[in-house]
């Protein structure tokens, strides 16, 4: 099995909940092995540690991508609201399904839920889902989460608060098993099929928020509030990390996307700054010293392309890459 295929399957496994773990000795490329060995030599190690100290001493926070990302989430959701309030027919509907200047768009997960529930394949829904899948495939699959999802933004703000509370000892982050999300994905798909109700949509905070923006406040927002409270005090990013099937659906699209975060072992000092800020740190496992099986690697399926690791990385070892465009960017 080729290294690329193996890495791809591994990224899917990790996305579904497997611990990344140490790679097999045979998985490493020659260059990677040599580079790891070189980094292990005492002199180089000392140089690296000195560099890290220096770097972290005058670390300035960067929000290079965040400002665009937040703007993107706000703009996308605002377009729905503006379309409705001013009747400009730009994007009518909600994030679950809409018409973008007349073209059908259907959220992949909502589309799957109603298809399973009614056991019928609807042309409009398929057209909408394919359109959405192609669009998000282009920009990186789970980029939907960090560049469009309104719950993600709310959750991100709550996370910032959560981290402050943890510092003060007023909150803690209880870890759960990531496999829970995979189990719930299957559970909700099965429930839709068996009960013929779109059970997941009843608790889907993305749909609830998206509709509330356009159609007005609902009691259902209390559920979203409860989720955010859980995230504030007990479980960091509870919904996005451990529950949301929408994330898995878009991960699958992202697993074969040309737009990826790229890792360069040459540049990396293994500080771990990236993993500390990442929503899905398991995808950054190769940044742990000795774990990268190749010198140049693409971050796996579960990555939301949020760019926070890029901002956190002091050495520029992580960067956005569009495969196939090569030197164009």
């Amino acid at each position, binding site marked *: 099995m080729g290294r690329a295929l193996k890495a791809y399957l591994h990224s899917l496994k990790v996305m579904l909940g497997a611990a990344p773990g140490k790679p097999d000795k045979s998985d490493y490329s020659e260059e990677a092995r040599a580079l790891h060995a070189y980094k292990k030599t005492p002199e180089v190690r000392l140089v690296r540690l000195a560099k890290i100290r220096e770097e972290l001493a005058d670390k300035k926070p960067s929000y290079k991508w965040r400002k665009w990302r937040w703007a993107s989430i706000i703009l996308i959701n605002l377009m729905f609201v503006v379309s*409705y309030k001013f009747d400009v027919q730009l994007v*009518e*509907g*909600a994030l*679950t*399904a*809409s*018409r973008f200047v007349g073209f*059908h768009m*259907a*959220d992949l997960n*909502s*589309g799957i839920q*109603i298809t399973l*529930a*009614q056991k*019928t394949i*609807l042309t*409009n*829904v398929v057209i*909408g889902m394919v359109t959405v899948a192609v669009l998000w495939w282009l920009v990186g699959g789970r980029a939907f989460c960090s560049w469009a999802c309104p719950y993600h933004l709310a959750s991100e703000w709550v996370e910032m608060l959560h981290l402050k509370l943890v510092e003060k000892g007023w909150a803690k982050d*209880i*870890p*759960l*098993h990531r*496999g*829970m999300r995979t*189990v*719930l994905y299957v*559970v*909700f798909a099965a*429930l839709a099929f068996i*009960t*013929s*109700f*779109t*059970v*997941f*949509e*009843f*608790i889907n905070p993305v*749909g*609830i928020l998206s*509709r509330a923006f*356009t*159609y007005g406040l*609902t*009691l*259902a927002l*209390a*559920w979203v509030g409860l989720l955010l409270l859980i995230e504030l005090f007990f*479980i960091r990013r*509870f919904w996005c990390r*451990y*529950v949301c099937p929408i994330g898995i659906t878009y991960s699958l699209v992202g697993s074969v996307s040309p737009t990826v975060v790229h890792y360069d072992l040459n540049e990396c000092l293994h500080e771990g700054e990236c993993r500390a800020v990442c929503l899905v740190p398991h995808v950054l496992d190769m940044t742990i010293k000795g774990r990268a099986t190749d010198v140049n690697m693409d971050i796996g399926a579960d990555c939301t392309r949020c760019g926070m690791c890029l901002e956190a990385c002091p050495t520029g070892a992580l960067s956005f890459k569009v495969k196939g465009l090569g030197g164009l960017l």
Partner: protein
Amino acid sequence: MTEPKAKKKPANKHLSRQQKQRRTLLLSMVAGAGVTGVGLAGYVPVAKNGQTRLRPPGALDERLFLASCIKCGQCEQVCPVNAIKLADIMDGFGLGTPYIDARTQACDFSCDATQCILACPTGSLSHKINKKEEVQMGLARLSSPTTCLARQGLGFVGLARGEDFPGIHRYVEVDRWNPIPIADHPYDLEICDLCVRECPIKNAISMQPLSDDPNDKRRTPVVNTDVCVGCGMCEMICPTEPSSITIDIAAKRESA
């Protein structure tokens, strides 16, 4: 044998790695079951078979409607009289699905062409329907005959629902294209026939005399169950409180 005081519960940090893993797994199962449980709670309001809400024109049978609606609200957006509302969490699995509260704002087919059906991306509002006459939302029924003004031989003068009523309706004789507030349209009727007068479907309701006596002014609205589409316009316009005529959502046209 007696050493209960020494047996203190170990603090979390003393848990072995295996114990920690087991605890994480257990917590995950509890959390997962919790989320699933909350999801399934949405079943309670829909547990009873049958419909509890008046659905927009073209809605499929309730079960199929709930299965197929993608909860996007596009139908809500196109309705010119804003008759369509989206259900809240109290509707359980119906959360985000469209319904009409006819007494507050009925569908009066101001759009002329079942726009909500055209807007629906999933066919939950069935695309098989092309004309308002084909719609089947329910059937109007004289649910409170004793309060009906016509049955008492009474007329109606003034605003059908009072000056604060926000509901709108398209009066073709006033403005062919735009609905206006019902509160802007006073009536002066010798015998109240508002339900018949404002009904958007031809021959769906008619006024019939209550007796053979030509001097008896009393009339009664009679719903033609082969024609009525259940839009609820009569329920909205009825000036008695509560409305003497309402939509029976369980009843469907006989001819269909």
